[in-house]
């Protein structure tokens, strides 16, 4: 089964690279034809990833959410439906190509991580694990899309074509991050009797939450266009530290994933 899982995940990686190539070709050659292939390539990538994750779930006998490799694949899984949802609302290439850019990068990072699946430690054997990790990973996926779209706007040195897209992505990520923090707190209270312990991951999640709250309020105060885009890139740097930096540099209750 391990070979079949690897086949589907590698196929998804290849399709993600193909969608990046198609997006790049459409942008560089200023042609619409390659861009038309991007939604289909991303959909195929998502299907292959779904098959890989489904088989991994069956092999492990539990949802693949307990180490950084598994959670990163789950984050990738959310990237595509979120992208498709916002592409339907905002049918412009800018709504799709953040996923085309971000997915190969995330697949590449996942490939560098330890894939060893270990049995769940007692504290992780809870249904809260599913809700907590899924909401956090969905939030990170929305923030990743927002950051890539914002960085692209900044690189082009002009205001984002559709700032509403950035706002909707940031709002979605913020709501999902809140759900992730809340479910984590309720779970911690069930497992340890303390809903908040100032664990480094908790603290950095709260810091990230405050940063996005401030960014959304600054936008109301007039920080629009490139200023808002720059804020989203800075906030995503905090997401990256919360997700990777805390695990590698700081020890705490989330050291496993």
């Amino acid at each position, binding site marked *: 089964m391990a070979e079949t899982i690897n086949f589907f995940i590698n196929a998804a990686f290849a399709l993600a690279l193909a969608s990046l190539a198609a997006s790049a070709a459409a942008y560089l050659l200023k042609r619409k034809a390659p861009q038309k292939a991007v939604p289909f390539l991303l959909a195929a990538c998502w299907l292959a990833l779904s098959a890989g994750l489904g088989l991994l779930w069956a092999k492990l006998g539990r949802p693949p959410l307990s180490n950084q490799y598994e959670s990163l694949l789950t984050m990738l899984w959310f990237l595509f439906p979120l992208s498709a949802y916002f592409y339907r609302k905002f049918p412009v290439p800018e709504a799709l190509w953040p996923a085309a850019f971000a997915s190969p990068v995330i697949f590449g990072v996942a490939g560098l991580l330890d894939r060893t699946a*270990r*049995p*769940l*430690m*007692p*504290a992780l*054997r*809870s249904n*809260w694990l599913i809700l907590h990790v899924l909401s956090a990973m969905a939030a990170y996926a929305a923030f990743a899309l927002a950051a890539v779209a914002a960085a692209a706007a900044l690189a082009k040195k002009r205001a984002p074509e559709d700032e509403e897209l950035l706002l909707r992505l940031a*709002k*979605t990520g*913020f*709501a999902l991050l*809140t*759900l992730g923090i*809340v479910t984590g*707190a*309720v779970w911690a*209270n*069930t*497992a*340890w*009797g*303390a*809903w*908040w312990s*100032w664990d*480094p991951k908790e*603290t*950095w999640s*709260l*810091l990230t939450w*405050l*940063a996005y*709250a*401030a960014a959304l*309020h*600054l936008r*109301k*105060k007039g920080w629009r266009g490139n200023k808002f885009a720059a804020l989203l890139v800075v906030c995503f740097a905090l997401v990256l530290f919360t997700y990777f930096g*805390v695990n590698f*540099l*700081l020890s705490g209750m989330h050291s496993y994933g």
Partner: protein
Amino acid sequence: MLKIFASLHLFFALCLALGSVFIYQTIFNAGPPVYGSPWFAALGALLAANVAACAGRRLRTASASFLFIHAGIVLVILGAFASRALRFEAELPLRTGTESDRVYSGNAVYQLPFSVKLVDFRLEYYGEPSGKLTIRDEAGGTDFPVKEGTELKLPAKGAEIKVLRLARDFGLTGKNEVADKSPYWHNPAAQVEITTGKKKEKLWLFANFPGMHREGLPFHISYGLENADIKNFTSAVLVRPSGGAAFSAEISVNKPLRTGGYTLYQSSYDPAEAGYSLLTVARDRGLWAVYAGFAALLTGLFLWLKR
């Protein structure tokens, strides 16, 4: 006054201040955590006042989502303060067969309105752990799965190894005989007989103390376990409320027991003493406010996204 507290500039300043504190605490601070300090509590109180004032100023014109979100945040912060002031948490250490209504928090001892007897403490593994011997040299290490009676021939080293006995939780009886102290794999050990040339040597190898009994051996050998991951640990208890009927219950990680206004959590155990279980007894009278805040916040965010 309301205008000052309802300022968005104050909110940005508080976000910046709290963010800086979090970065300092998690990365640079080697001393006591700042979270218990009065000035940190003041920052939290100021944030609650700021968010409440913002919501208060727009009470008549704001959308339901705005009010739910801001009321939720205020409730969570107030609940956190109530939790800090009203929360009771203490440890209840128990040994199998013992009963106690005394719990400990630092140097203080408290009496519960019920007593708890530890009837049994169980550790559950994902599967039966297996032993292995590792022979290591300059080229690296080689693992050999072993059971009692396994014989290994190592022609390259001119040695033979026979596994005489395996122990899960090595201990010595009063007569100095080896016996398992518990059915759990707390102190795994293997007794091996190593033959090199005409020399025979019997020794115990301990998984937890790989350096022991290694002196004088012509190669490095160690004993270890595979698949020894713990799935769960459970305390079977008998709870006797004062003036009430006793009842049996089980407490494990993620499955606490609520009784008499307290919640009992399975905290820990002691690998050196198989019948020992550490429970945490907690009562948090501020929790309802926190949970009400969470509910309001999530309701508000749901409405906000739907707009």
